[in-house]
């Protein structure tokens, strides 16, 4: 394709997905992948948090690893990942909490009905339409509490698993003192 054609969004989309471009929001099986792809534009926040976490790794550890002749992979597995595991844990918990509450993307893309075949009828979307479309506020509140209990249960599970895979430099001497 020619360079000037590259500047036409239509032709880029056709070039990537073929002439019979998919109907992303009209096909029930494609709505959720579309929303997932759209959420990719939100990864920046997680990246900044990882960057901050990476700043806290003492350079002495890498120097020591260099002296011991560690390669890229062993440094990644034995230093970087354990040292940023608190940040991974943070992003993981936030991911659990955030994704169970997914609402805005679906609301913007397909509206409160949940799209074709109600394929994107997320919990929060359903709750919203119960409350503000059908005016059943009591039921919506009950649903919110069920969601709350669900999320808190999952979060506690993740917290319980944390001693297995999260390494806290600040607690290395005998844990809770």
């Amino acid at each position: 394709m020619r360079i000037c054609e590259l500047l036409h969004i239509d032709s880029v989309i056709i070039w990537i997905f073929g002439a019979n471009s998919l109907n992303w929001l009209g096909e029930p099986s494609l709505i959720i992948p579309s929303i997932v792809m759209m959420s990719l534009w939100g990864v920046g926040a997680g990246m900044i948090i990882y960057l901050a976490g990476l700043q806290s790794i003492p350079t002495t550890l890498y120097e020591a690893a260099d002296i011991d002749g560690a390669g890229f992979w062993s440094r990644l597995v034995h230093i970087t990942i354990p040292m940023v595991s608190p940040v991974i844990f943070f992003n993981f918990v936030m991911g659990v909490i955030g994704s169970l509450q997914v609402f805005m993307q679906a609301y913007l893309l397909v509206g409160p009905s949940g799209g074709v075949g109600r394929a994107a009828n997320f919990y929060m979307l359903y709750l919203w339409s119960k409350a503000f479309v059908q005016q059943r506020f009591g039921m919506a509140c009950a649903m919110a509490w069920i969601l709350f209990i669900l999320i808190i249960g999952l979060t506690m599970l993740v917290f319980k698993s944390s001693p297995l895979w999260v390494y806290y430099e600040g607690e290395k001497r005998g844990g809770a003192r």
Partner: protein
Amino acid sequence: MRLTKWQKIGLYFIMTAGAVPMLIPLFWMIGTSLKPSLGIDEPPLTLLPRSKFHTLKIDGRTFPVRTIEKLGDEKPPEGKAWIKPVFEENRNTITIPERWVSRETLKNNNVVFRLFRGGEHETDDIEVLVVARDKGTATLDVLVKKKIEIPRSVLGPKDMLDPRPGNYPEAISKMDLLPQLVNTLVIVCWSILGTTLSCAIVGYTFARGRFVGRKKLFLVCIATMMLPAQVTMIPRFILFKSLGWIDTYYPFIVPTFFGNAFFIFLFRQYFLTIPSDLEEAARIDGCGHFGTFWHIMLPMAKPIVLTCMVFTFMGVWNSFMGPLIYLNSEYNYTLAICLAMFRGQYESMQPNLVMAASAMMMLPVLIIFFLAQKAFMKGVVVSGVKG
């Protein structure tokens, strides 16, 4: 990290391949903000501001001629004047009478001619607007005295770049920005101060404090994020209404001084990675709890403090729902509300102006982000404690 040349090339290739699709919406926004208001949503959708032009050869140089459907009594653009040229008998050449060219027009780089061309289409005259760009005064004088030739064959349509930077001043002039900017900045400053201070203190306490029920309290703190904002919206409104805070900035500022579970959790995670030997050293040197926090731990947490500040800035700068709910009077509105109203007013007719306004709205966020990134990258490299 030492990489070979090919590894570096591969790294840049992968990162560029990831960055370009991510940046397409941004390019689209800036491109749209530079387009003329007509035909933005007509296929083919383009990233760059392009228009179909008929071209015109003047003195051997090609100039775009844009056909305008409805000229009517349209006033000429700022600093430009309409010039009415006369066609000669053969209808292929025109001469522009010098008396129709004003001095101001000559000083301007953009000279607008309005040509009326009869001929084949006797019933409806083709009105064309000739925009001659990049012509200095000297060249123009020559140009005006000469005959301008319009060979019929050249008048076929051609796709050319047509950026309109004038959309930006136009968008500014249509919004009353200054009071809203001041309002937004007031909320932003207080929120950054409140969020950073309170969350750092609470996060430090959850990371290092030893007290009964610490884990349970922390879970309660995290649990405040688990009720969706859509659910807590109405109770919050009732609360702030009973406090008499409607149409003030207190609903945005005061809660920030009471922490935010997201940043508390973030600070806690970060403080937990800092070796406790440093604190012990401070303790031995006679620092109290607060002294240790303020002089040792907070400087160590500079990357997270910066992250917290940038996130708070972005959140408050863009926040729409809160100001929409709590603010009633127009003089209290924030920029986000202002932009939304502007959008409502102009979206259907002049989406290019809406995009220009949005792009300007985004600029401070970008500046803050890049400043923070600079500080971030050269920030503290925690040297750690040997032993």
